[in-house]
C-alpha cells in the first residue's frame, strides 16, 4: 500500500511536466507581451526590462531556466506587480481560496450524503421527490447564477448576511460563498449516494442479512453503507478540485481576495510567471486530490488491491 502510494506520487511528476510544458508553450506562442499595455515605453526601457527578466533569451533557454528555478521552488517574479514574487502573491490569496473550497466540500458532504441516504431508504416518498428535484436544480444552475441570487435574497432583501466583500476574521462573509459553492457538490453527492445505496440495498447479501432477522438500521450501518459509499468517495477527489477551482467564480461574485483574480488578470496582462505559478499550484492540488481519492477507494473496497 505504501509502495503503491509512493509510486503514484512519483507518477504525478511526468504529468506535471507535461502540464508545465503545454501551458508554457501556449502562453508564449500567443501574441502580445507583458509590457504591451503600458503606454508607449521607450524602446530602450523596454529592452532593459526584457533583459532584466530574461525575456530576450531564446524560448527553449527560458523554458529550461524556468524549470531550473522551479526545481528550487522558485516561481519567479511577477512581471506586473513588480514589488512581489509570484510565491508571495499566491501565498496571500491561497489560504482564503482553500478555506472556501474545503469548507464547501465539508458542507456538501454533511448535506449531500445524509440527504441521499434518506432519499434512498424512503424511496418514492415526498422526501425522496424533494431531494431529487432539489438536486436537479442545484446541478443545473451554475454558481454565478445562484451566487448573485442568494446575495440578492439573503443580503439585500432580508439583511441577514453581507451581500459581498471581506473582512479578515469575520466568518459571516464566508457563509454565502461557501453555500453557493457547496450546493452543486451536495446535489451531486446526494444523487450518487441515493443511486448507489438503492443498488446495494437490492444486493443478495443485504437481503440475506434481512432474512437473518437484522433490523433495518443495523443492515444499513453494518452492511449497506460502506459499499454504497464507494462511488461517492471516488467523486470526492474531483469534488475538492472542483471546489477549489470553482472558488474562482465565487470569489469574483462575492468580491473575495483569494487567488481567483490572479489567473484571469494574469492571463490578460500576460504576466507569464504569475499564470504559470497558478496553474502549477492548482494542478498539483488537483492531482493530489485524485490520488488521495484513489487511495481511500482502495482502503474502502477490499476488492481493489494495490501491489
Amino acid at each position: 500500500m505504501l509502495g503503491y502510494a509512493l509510486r503514484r506520487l512519483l507518477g504525478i511528476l511526468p504529468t506535471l511536466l507535461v502540464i508545465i510544458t503545454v501551458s508554457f508553450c501556449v502562453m508564449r506562442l500567443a501574441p502580445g507581451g507583458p509590457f504591451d499595455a503600458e503606454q508607449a515605453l521607450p524602446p530602450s526601457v523596454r529592452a532593459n526590462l526584457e533583459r532584466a527578466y530574461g525575456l530576450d533569451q531564446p524560448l527553449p533557454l527560458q523554458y529550461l531556466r524556468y524549470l531550473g528555478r522551479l526545481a528550487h521552488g522558485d516561481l519567479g517574479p511577477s512581471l506586473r506587480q513588480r514589488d512581489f514574487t509570484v510565491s508571495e502573491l499566491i501565498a496571500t490569496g491561497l489560504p482564503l481560496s482553500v478555506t472556501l473550497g474545503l469548507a464547501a466540500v465539508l458542507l456538501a458532504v454533511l448535506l449531500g450524503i445524509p440527504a441521499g441516504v434518506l432519499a434512498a431508504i424512503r424511496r418514492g416518498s415526498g422526501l425522496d421527490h424533494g431531494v431529487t428535484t432539489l438536486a436537479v436544480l442545484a446541478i443545473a444552475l451554475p454558481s454565478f447564477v445562484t451566487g448573485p441570487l442568494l446575495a440578492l435574497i439573503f443580503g439585500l432583501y432580508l439583511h441577514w448576511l453581507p451581500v459581498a466583500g471581506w473582512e479578515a476574521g469575520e466568518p459571516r462573509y464566508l457563509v454565502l460563498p461557501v453555500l453557493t459553492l457547496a450546493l452543486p457538490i451536495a446535489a451531486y453527492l446526494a444523487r450518487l449516494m441515493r443511486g448507489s445505496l438503492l443498488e446495494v440495498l437490492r444486493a443478495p447479501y443485504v437481503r440475506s442479512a434481512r432474512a437473518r432477522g437484522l433490523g433495518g438500521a443495523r443492515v444499513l450501518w453494518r452492511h449497506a453503507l460502506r459499499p454504497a459509499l464507494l462511488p461517492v468517495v471516488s467523486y470526492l477527489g474531483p469534488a475538492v478540485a472542483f471546489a477549489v477551482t470553482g472558488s474562482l467564480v465565487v470569489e469574483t461574485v462575492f468580491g473575495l481576495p483569494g487567488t481567483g483574480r490572479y489567473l484571469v488578470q494574469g492571463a490578460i496582462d500576460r504576466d507569464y510567471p504569475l499564470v504559470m505559478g497558478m496553474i502549477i499550484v492548482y494542478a498539483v492540488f488537483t492531482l493530489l486530490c485524485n490520488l488521495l481519492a484513489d487511495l481511500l477507494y482502495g482502503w474502502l473496497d477490499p476488492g481493489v488491491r494495490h501491489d
Partner: protein
Amino acid sequence: MTELLAGEGRGLWSDARRRLGCNRMALTALAVIVLLACLAALAPLLSPWAYDSLDWRHLAAPPGLTASHWLGTDRLGRDLLVRTLYGARLSLVISVVASAVSLAIGIAWGSIAGYAGGRTDAWMMRCVDVLYSLPYLFIVIILTTLFRRGSITVLLLGVAAVGWLTTARIVRGQTLALKRREFVEAARATGATPWDILRRHIVPNLLGPVAVYAALTVPQMIMFETFLSFLGLGVQEPNASLGNLVYVGAQEMESAPWLLIVPAAVLALLLISLNLFGDGVRDALDPRER
C-alpha cells in the same frame, strides 16, 4: 402471432422514441427548449428595439406591461427582453456548435484508438488522461484570454477542446467491445479497409451511448460559455450572452434587480430544461439506468 414476430421497426431508436414519448417531464422540457429557441430565433421580429439600440427616454426603466419595454431596460436604455433573447440565441448557438465539434473529435479519437489497439491506443488514451487531470477550466481560460479576447471562434474552440475527452473515453470503450463482434470480423474477412469498418460498422453502432452523453453535453457547454462570458472572457459588450448579462445584473442588483433576475431566470430555465431532457434521453436509450 406472425404480426408479433414481424414486429416492424422495433429497433433501438424507435423504442427509445416511444419511451421518450411517455416521459412527460422530458416532453415538457423539450417544449420549453423549443419555445425558448423559437423566441430567441425570432427576437429581431418581435420587438421594435435592437439589442444595442439606446432609448434615452427610458434609462434603467423597471419592467411593466404598460411600459414600452416589458422587461425594463438597462442603464444605457437597452431593452432587456431583446437583449436576453439575443443572449439566449448566442448561448444556444455556441453550445450546440461546440457540442457538435467536441463530439466529432471525441468519436474520431476514441474509435481510432479503440480500433487500432496496442501502442497507438495506449498513447492516444494517455494524452486524454493527461488532459483530463488538468484543471480544464484553466486551459479554457488561458486559451480564451491569450488569443483575441471576445472572438467567438476562439471561445467555441476553447469550449469544445474540453468537451471531447469524456466522449473519447466512452467511444473507445464501446469500440473495444464492438471490434470483437462477428459482423466486424465478417467485414474484415470481405476485405474492408479499417477506415471502412470504422465508418460503416463501428461508428453507427456506438451512436446510442454517444447520444446519451451528447444530450447532457449541450447544457454543460452552455454553462461553460456563460461562465466565460461572466468572467469577461467570452462574449463582449455590446453583444449579449446570458453570461455577461448576469454579470451586469449582479453589478447593478441593488438599484435594478430585474437586470439580474430576468437573464438569471432565463438561463436557469434553459439549463434545467436541457438537463431534464438529457435525463429523459438517457432513460429512453438506456432503461437499465433508471
